[in-house]
C-alpha cells in the first residue's frame, strides 16, 4: 500500500491531470450542447472526451515508462529485491490512476450538467462512461508497452501515432467509438466489461515484460504484443451496439396530433408542443394523422443489427427524428405524416406531376411547422424537387388567406390530376 501511494505521489502522470482535465472539459463543452439533458447523449459526449484523452494517454504513458531507461535505472530495477513485475504494475497503475482521474473530472461535469433536470435513463450514461474508459486504459497500457520496447527518444511519438492508427481500426471494425448516443441504441454491458477485462489483461502483460534480456526472458517480452492481440480479437468479435425494442411506455403528448417520444427525450417536450401549436395554427383545414412517434418507436422496422433491418407490413404511425433538438427534423417528420394523410387515397403509382405539387405542399408544411427560417440540413435532392420545395417555402411567407387558398387549390389539383393511376 505504501508503495502504491509512493508511486501515486511521484509518477510524472500527476502533472498531466490538470491539462488533460482542461482538454476534456473543452471538448465536452466546446461543441453543440444538445446532449445536456439526455442521459445517453451526455454519456456519449463524455465518452468522446475519453477518446481524445486516450490519444494523449498513450504518449504520457510511453514517456513515463521510458523514464527508467532515460535515467539509466534498468539494471538497478532488475537487480532490486522486489520483483520487477510488482514495481512495474505499481508504476503503471499509478500513471493510469492519474489519467483516469482526468476522465472522471469530465464525467462528473457531464453528469452534473444533465443531473439538474434528471430525465429517465441514467443507466445508459454509465454504460457510455464505461465505454469511454476502455480506450483510456487501453492506450495507457499500449503506451507503456511502446515505452518499454522502443528507444525512449521515439517512445512517445511512436506510442501516440500507433495508438491513433490502432484505435481508428478498432473504431472501424468494432464500433469502439460512439459519436452520439441516441436513445434507440443500447450498449451491451457484457461486451464493455469483456473489452475492459481484455484491456486489463493487456496491462498485466505489459508489466511482465522483463527489464533486461538475459536467458529465457525473451518469452516474457511477448506478453505485451499478445495482450494487444487479445484486445483486438475481443474487440472485433463482440457486438457493442444494438437497436432497442420500442419503449413500452413512451412519453406521449396530446395536442392536435399525439406525439410519442422516447422517455429519454423528455427535454424535447417544449419543442414538440411548439411544433404542435404551429400545426394547430395551419390556415387550411387539413386531415391530420392521429399519431406521430419518435425514431424507431413505431415498430415498423425490425432491426437485425446496426446495418440490416426489415420493414414490416401494416399501418404504423409515421416517425420523426428529433436528434440534436432539430426543429427541422421534427417538422420534416410531421410534415411527411400530414402530407401522407392528405394524399392517403391517392394511388401509389399515380400519374407523375411535372410541377411536383405534393412536394410543394410538403415544403410548405415543413416550413410552417418548423416556424420558418432556413433549414438546418443540406440536401442533394434532384433539382426539380428542390424547385418545388422553394415554391412551397415561398408560399409560406405570404398572407394567411392567400396560403389557405393556395393549399386548397393545390391539393384539389393534385387529387383531380395526379392522384389516379395513369
Amino acid at each position, binding site marked *: 500500500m505504501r508503495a502504491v501511494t509512493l508511486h501515486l505521489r511521484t509518477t510524472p502522470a500527476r502533472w498531466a491531470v490538470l491539462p488533460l482535465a482542461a482538454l476534456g472539459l473543452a471538448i465536452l463543452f466546446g*461543441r453543440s450542447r444538445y446532449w445536456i439533458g439526455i442521459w445517453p447523449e451526455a454519456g456519449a459526449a463524455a465518452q468522446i472526451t475519453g477518446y481524445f484523452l486516450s490519444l494523449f494517454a498513450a504518449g504520457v504513458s510511453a514517456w513515463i515508462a521510458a523514464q527508467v531507461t532515460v535515467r539509466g535505472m534498468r539494471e538497478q530495477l532488475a537487480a532490486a529485491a522486489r520483483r520487477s513485475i510488482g514495481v512495474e504494475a505499481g508504476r503503471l497503475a499509478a500513471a493510469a490512476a492519474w489519467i483516469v482521474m482526468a476522465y472522471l473530472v469530465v464525467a462528473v461535469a457531464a453528469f452534473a450538467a444533465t443531473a439538474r433536470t434528471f430525465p429517465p435513463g441514467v443507466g445508459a450514461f454509465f454504460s457510455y462512461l464505461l465505454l469511454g474508459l476502455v480506450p483510456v486504459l487501453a492506450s495507457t497500457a499500449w503506451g507503456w508497452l511502446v515505452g518499454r520496447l522502443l528507444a525512449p527518444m521515439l517512445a*512517445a511519438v511512436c506510442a501516440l501515432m500507433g495508438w491513433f492508427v490502432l484505435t481508428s481500426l478498432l473504431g472501424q471494425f468494432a464500433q469502439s467509438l460512439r459519436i452520439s448516443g441516441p436513445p434507440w441504441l443500447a450498449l451491451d454491458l457484457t461486451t464493455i466489461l469483456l473489452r475492459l477485462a481484455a484491456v486489463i489483461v493487456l496491462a498485466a502483460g505489459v508489466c511482465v515484460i522483463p527489464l533486461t534480456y538475459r536467458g529465457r526472458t525473451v518469452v516474457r517480452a511477448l506478453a505485451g504484443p499478445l495482450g494487444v492481440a487479445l484486445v483486438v480479437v475481443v474487440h472485433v468479435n463482440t457486438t457493442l451496439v444494438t437497436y432497442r425494442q420500442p419503449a413500452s411506455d413512451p412519453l406521449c403528448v396530446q395536442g392536435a396530433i399525439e406525439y410519442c417520444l422516447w422517455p429519454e427525450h423528455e427535454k424535447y417536450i417544449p419543442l414538440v408542443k411548439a411544433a404542435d401549436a404551429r400545426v394547430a395554427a395551419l390556415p387550411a383545414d387539413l386531415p391530420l394523422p392521429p399519431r406521430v412517434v419518435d425514431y424507431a418507436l413505431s415498430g415498423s422496422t425490425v432491426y437485425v443489427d446496426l446495418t440490416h433491418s426489415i420493414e414490416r407490413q401494416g399501418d404504423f404511425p409515421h416517425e420523426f427524428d428529433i436528434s440534436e433538438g432539430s426543429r427541422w427534423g421534427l417538422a420534416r417528420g410531421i410534415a411527411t405524416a400530414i402530407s401522407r394523410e392528405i394524399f392517403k387515397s391517392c394511388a401509389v403509382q399515380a400519374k407523375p406531376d411535372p410541377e411536383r405539387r405534393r412536394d410543394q405542399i410538403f415544403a410548405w408544411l415543413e416550413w410552417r411547422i418548423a416556424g420558418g427560417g432556413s433549414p438546418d440540413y443540406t440536401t442533394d435532392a434532384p433539382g426539380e424537387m428542390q424547385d418545388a420545395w422553394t415554391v412551397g417555402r415561398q408560399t409560406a411567407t405570404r398572407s394567411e388567406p392567400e396560403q389557405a387558398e393556395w393549399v386548397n387549390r393545390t391539393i384539389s389539383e393534385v387529387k383531380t390530376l395526379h392522384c389516379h393511376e395513369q
Partner: protein
Amino acid sequence: MNSDRVTHLRMALLYLSTRKVHLIILGAVALGVATAVWGSWEAATPAALDGNETHVPLWRLFAVGSAILPVLSLTGPLDTLEAAAGPAYFRLRHTVLFATFAVSFACIVYGGALQAEAGTVPLVVRATPAWFGLALLSARILGRRSAWILPWAVMCALIYWGPRGQGAYHWWDFSASPPATTSTAWLSAALFALGVGAHLLTPWRVRTATRFRFPRQTEHQP
C-alpha cells in the same frame, strides 16, 4: 587546419551516434512509406459539429510524426552539460536538426506524391513545416523530450474543431483547409518561423539580450 577538420568529423560522428539519428531517419522513411501505402485511409473521428463525425486521412497524422522526429535529435542525456558547449557544437546541432528535417520532409512529401489521393502534396508541404515549428516551440517550452505535446494538442484541436461541415474546414486548420487559402499558408509559415525563432532563442541569447538592457541585474554578486 587538417586536425581541426578531423576533430569536427569525429565530433559529428559521435553526435550522430549519441542522438540515434539513424533511428530518426528510419522513422522518417517508415512514415513516408506509410503515407504512400495508407496515407489516404480515413479514420473516423469525432468533431464538434452536431452529432457528426469527420474523417481524418492518416497522412495528416503521419505529417505530425515526421515533423516531431527531427526535433527529437535535440534530446540527449546530458542536455544541461551541452548547454555550455561551444559554437561549433551548436552549429553541428542546427545542421543535424535541419538536415534531418529536410530528409523527413522529403520522405513524407514523396510518400504523399505516391499515394492514391490526388492533391495531397500541397497540403503536406504546407502542414509539415507548421508541425515542425510547433514541435520546436514545444521543445523550447516544455523540454526536448516533450516536443510531441504541443503539436499533438494542436492536432487534437484541429481534428475536433477544424471541420466546418460538408467537407469544409476553418481557415486556421493548416493541415486540411484547401491549399489555395492564402491566410492558411501564412499561418503555416508563421508557425514555422515561431518555432525556429524559439529554437534560436537559447538561454544564453536571452541572457545576453537582457544583460544589454539591464546591466546591473545580471552582474555577478560576490
